[in-house]
């Protein structure tokens, strides 16, 4: 039994080994010979990704470690997502990180450790396991966000993230302790059975605390205040990983906890209304505040807040279709966002500036980067035939099916608003002059990332069925 349990967490073990190996290799290698770290990391992750994909389709599923850990397609789907995002981040940031004088090895090791934390979050069947995964991820990110020691903004962002993240963790842990006190269990299934149908003040308090802790991670308004500053200050690859993978991991946990635990109690009426309002607020605030932004990372930060609102809509739909929508959207969100961030990383390191006005004339100076950025933001805006359109369609049709039509309208209107600020970036790139700015030829791994994300975004938009089918089987493995 134990051996099969350990077999089920092969990807986690492999990621942990890879992280430690990276630390060791980075120490053993001489200063000049550290180029091998990127291939080691990428190919290691690719191998694990291949195994996880195999596991998704053919693995033997079921809870392991006495019900503390889920081994199901839902978790596997998210693991595929984290690994893909990590590989893309590493590939796109090679030039960026190559400019750093030292500590490179640690960067990759930390990134890999963060993946481990996310994987545990996606699989955990127990609030404490979940918390351990969450902290592993978050503490790693504290370091990563403040990774540039001579950059004041990076350090500031690191400190801010540490203080605010710690507060939110405290609230979350407080909520978990309430739950344990009320039900005598930390396992999701046990909690669900114990809570019953009545709603008491302590349960409300615990629920709100859990919501606040998780809402912080997915940058749900009004727990989102940290996001723009941290996104702007952090090194761009870290921002990308934070915006994509960390958010997806938190969503995995939200879906598990929300669907498994809270549907047992009379949460439904008011709780759903409250969540709907928060989701609507998230969409509105994220999209509106994105409009006046002048920094590309800050713009993408607010855009990612808005995207969390769309994803929340799918969670609230509380059905296979809704979860499928969330999974589908989360996956295409990886490619669209990684495309945008790959361009931001590359242009940022080439020009030393992340201001949108410095993107002027990028279409002439670097046609590929401009095209990828355009495709990515249009996908985020949900313009067909790009993948974002199908994703939004799944999310909103799921929630309309549940009868919450008004939230879908909010989503439509806000998507239209988002087109405005996305296109204003495109406008600068294609119509701006940028005469005194340098040409930026794109090559190497960054070029691969850009082209790859753009092609995937286009392909899924044109032929969404395979990914949709994966998302459906993952969703059905969760919502029985």
């Amino acid at each position, binding site marked *: 039994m134990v051996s099969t349990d350990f077999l089920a967490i092969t990807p986690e073990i492999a990621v942990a080994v890879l992280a430690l190996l990276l630390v060791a290799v980075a120490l053993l290698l001489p200063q000049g010979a550290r180029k091998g770290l990127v291939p080691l990391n990428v190919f290691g992750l690719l191998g694990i990704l291949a195994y996880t994909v195999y596991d998704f389709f053919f693995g033997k599923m079921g809870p392991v470690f006495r019900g503390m850990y889920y081994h199901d397609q839902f978790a596997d789907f998210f693991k595929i997502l984290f690994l893909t995002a990590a590989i893309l981040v590493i590939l796109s940031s090679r030039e960026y990180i190559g400019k750093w004088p030292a500590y490179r090895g640690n960067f990759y090791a930390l990134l890999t450790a963060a993946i481990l934390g996310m994987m545990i979050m996606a699989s955990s069947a127990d609030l404490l396991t979940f918390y351990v995964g969450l902290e592993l991820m978050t503490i790693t990110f504290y370091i990563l966000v403040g990774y540039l020691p001579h950059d004041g903004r990076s350090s500031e962002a690191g400190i801010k993230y540490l203080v*605010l993240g710690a507060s939110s963790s405290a609230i979350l842990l407080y909520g978990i302790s309430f739950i344990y006190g009320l039900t005598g269990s930390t396992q999701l299934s046990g909690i669900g059975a114990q809570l019953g149908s009545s*709603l008491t003040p302590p349960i*409300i308090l615990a629920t709100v605390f859990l919501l606040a802790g998780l809402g912080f991670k997915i940058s749900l308004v009004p727990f989102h205040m940290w996001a723009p500053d941290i996104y702007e200050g952090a090194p761009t690859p870290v921002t990308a990983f934070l915006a994509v993978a960390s958010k997806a991991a938190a969503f995995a946990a939200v879906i598990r906890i929300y669907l498994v635990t809270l549907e047992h109690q009379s949460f439904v009426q008011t709780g759903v209304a409250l969540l709907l309002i928060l989701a609507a607020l998230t969409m509105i605030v994220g999209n509106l505040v994105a409009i006046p932004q002048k920094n590309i990372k800050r713009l993408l930060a607010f855009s990612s807040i808005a995207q969390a609102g769309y994803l929340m809509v799918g969670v609230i739909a509380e059905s296979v279709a809704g979860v499928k929508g969330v999974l589908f959207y989360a996956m295409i969100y990886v490619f669209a966002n990684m495309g945008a961030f790959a361009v931001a990383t590359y242009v940022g390191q080439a020009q030393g500036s992340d201001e949108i006005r410095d993107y002027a004339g990028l279409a002439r100076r670097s046609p590929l980067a401009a095209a990828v950025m355009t495709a990515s933001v249009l996908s985020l805006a949900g313009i067909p035939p790009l993948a974002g359109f199908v994703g939004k369609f799944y999310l909103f049709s799921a929630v309309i*099916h549940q009868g919450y039509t008004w939230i879908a309208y909010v989503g439509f209107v806000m998507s239209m608003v988002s087109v405005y600020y996305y296109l204003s970036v495109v406008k600068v790139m294609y119509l701006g002059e940028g005469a005194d700015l340098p040409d930026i030829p794109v090559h190497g791994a960054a070029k691969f990332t850009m082209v790859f994300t753009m092609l995937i975004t286009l392909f899924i938009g044109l032929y969404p069925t395979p990914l949709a089918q994966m998302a459906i089987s993952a969703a059905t493995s969760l919502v029985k």
Partner: protein
Amino acid sequence: MFTEMHSLYEWAWVIPALPFLSFLLIAFVTKRSKGLSAAVSILAILCAFGLAIAIAVGVIGSGSEIVKHPVITSINWLDISGLKLNFGTVVDPLSTMMLFVVGLVASMVQIYSVGYMHGDRGWSRYFAYQSLFAMSMLGLVIATNLLELFIFWELVGLCSYLLIGFWYHKVSAREAAKKAFMTTRVGDFGLLLGILFLYGKYGTLDFVHLAALMNGTAQGFALAGGVGYITLTAFLLFVGPIGKSGQFPLHVWLPDAMEGPTPVSALIHAATMVVAGVFLVARIYFIFQHAAPGALEFVAGLGAFTAIFAATIAIAQDDIKRILAYSTLSQLGYMMFALGVGSLTASMFHLMTHAFFKALMFLGAGSVIHALHEKQNIWDMGGLWKKMPITGTTFAIGVLAISGIPPFAGFWSKDEILSAALQNGHPIIYAVGLFTAFLTAFYMGRLFFVAFMGPEKKENHPHESPYWMTVPLIVLAFFSTVGGLVALPYHNFAYYVRNYVSVNGVVSLEAFAHEGMAWGLAGISVLFGLAGLVLAYMTYVTETIKAEAVAARFPGVYKLLKNKYYIDEIYLWLIHNIMDGVGKVLYWFDIHIIDGVINGLALVTRGGAGGLRRVHTGQLQTYALVFFLAVVVVFLAYTMGTGQVSALNPLAMLGGVK
């Protein structure tokens, strides 16, 4: 035979995939090497053509089995609530015939282009477009549903645009490309509306499902006024073919499209793309059958009108390619009215033979233009037969074929259309068709006698074209000669080519059986054809009849024909006076009303954004404060919402009582 070949039919998607691959290869890899680009393109289309032949052999061997059970291979493309779309291929006699025709003409044209486009700067681009076009057209004919067909339909339109404007440095080419694109867009809009109408009513666009649904509910519809709906849909759908197949009044783009390279005219604007409209009507023939009888009568009437209308214009034209273009319009009208009078077989048959001989004549014209260094006026030519024996002889075969002289291909198909018109009770259309046949023979004879047999011009030094160009001519001439023989009873073309859905869902082989050769009627049409040729001979060779004298006697008619009935001028007037006026009104509305509202909204939104942004101060304390405040507010809202005000009492909290 049927079961053995089944797995082959499932590979039909490879046929369009090959040219697409070559398009990608040329565009991304070989574009710098001229030889490689042409080789890739020709190899791909030849392989596709080979596969098409293999499928054709299989289909002929399968007999009636494939008529009853067309082989449909499809994958799910989109499946979102309310919209389920497949993408696939269908192999049935109709699509097989089209695959063969398109594959043949496309390969011949591409081989021919090696000679014709020699030394052109846009060589690789040309072959890339050719491959893209071949992909789109081959995909169009094996589409399983209307949306798939529509996608390819638009793609061939795009390729047509790109190839008409291939020499984009010429203003006339650019203008012609735009004209072609926009005129056909008018038709496409109607087609798209028709598709949406169909989807709205039936929830599927699949040909087979649609046919089954319509057959199943035929009775119910008549009661619920469904016939009106289907008739409207049929009319809307027919607007697409009007544009694409150059039926009156959307025919104006086709003659101008001759600005493109001549092989393009042969492939796209004579043999394949322009017949897509006819093909579409054949594919959705069951819709017309379920519509009110007026729909098919409209198709027949418009087709017959276009046939005679274009034929009269062709008489007065001097540009060799324009004569052929009007002739194409006229022949497309023929195919259309064949469908209208109820003979799908005859229409498809004529589509096939016309593709052979019209492609042949266009390529022949290209050979002449090539030899005379871009001279296109037939009066500048003369005596070419002697100097260019292969071009001249093959062109003569084309002329005989289109004039309906036995045993050439056109005779069989034209006769079948005419006898179908008469036997299905359309004597007026029969008469129009017969007179058009006479006119056709006359203007083709005029073209041939003036250009090939008239007195030689000193300033011309024509020489026979290279083998790259003459071999395709010979191949097409061969098909123009023997292509009609499949109509003989023991080949029985009709047995194979028909719509897989026949009347009322019952596939009966007799229903589409061959009209049979009506030898009496055939004799009459041969006489008319011969009369046309003889008249042309007397006018332009022996000059027994003076053409100038005739033109001088009817100056009005001549001017009218010469100026193509002033249709272009009428359109121009309409655009200048009506459209521009409406446009100005709408522009005012757009600027002042719509933009005003939008700008107002945008102002409000931006104001809101500015206010919200101020919350993000960058102060850590503020962020922490907002976070904890939010926890409290959400908690309060939640308790208020559930009516648990007691939660506000700390004692109740501490007790944790239920």
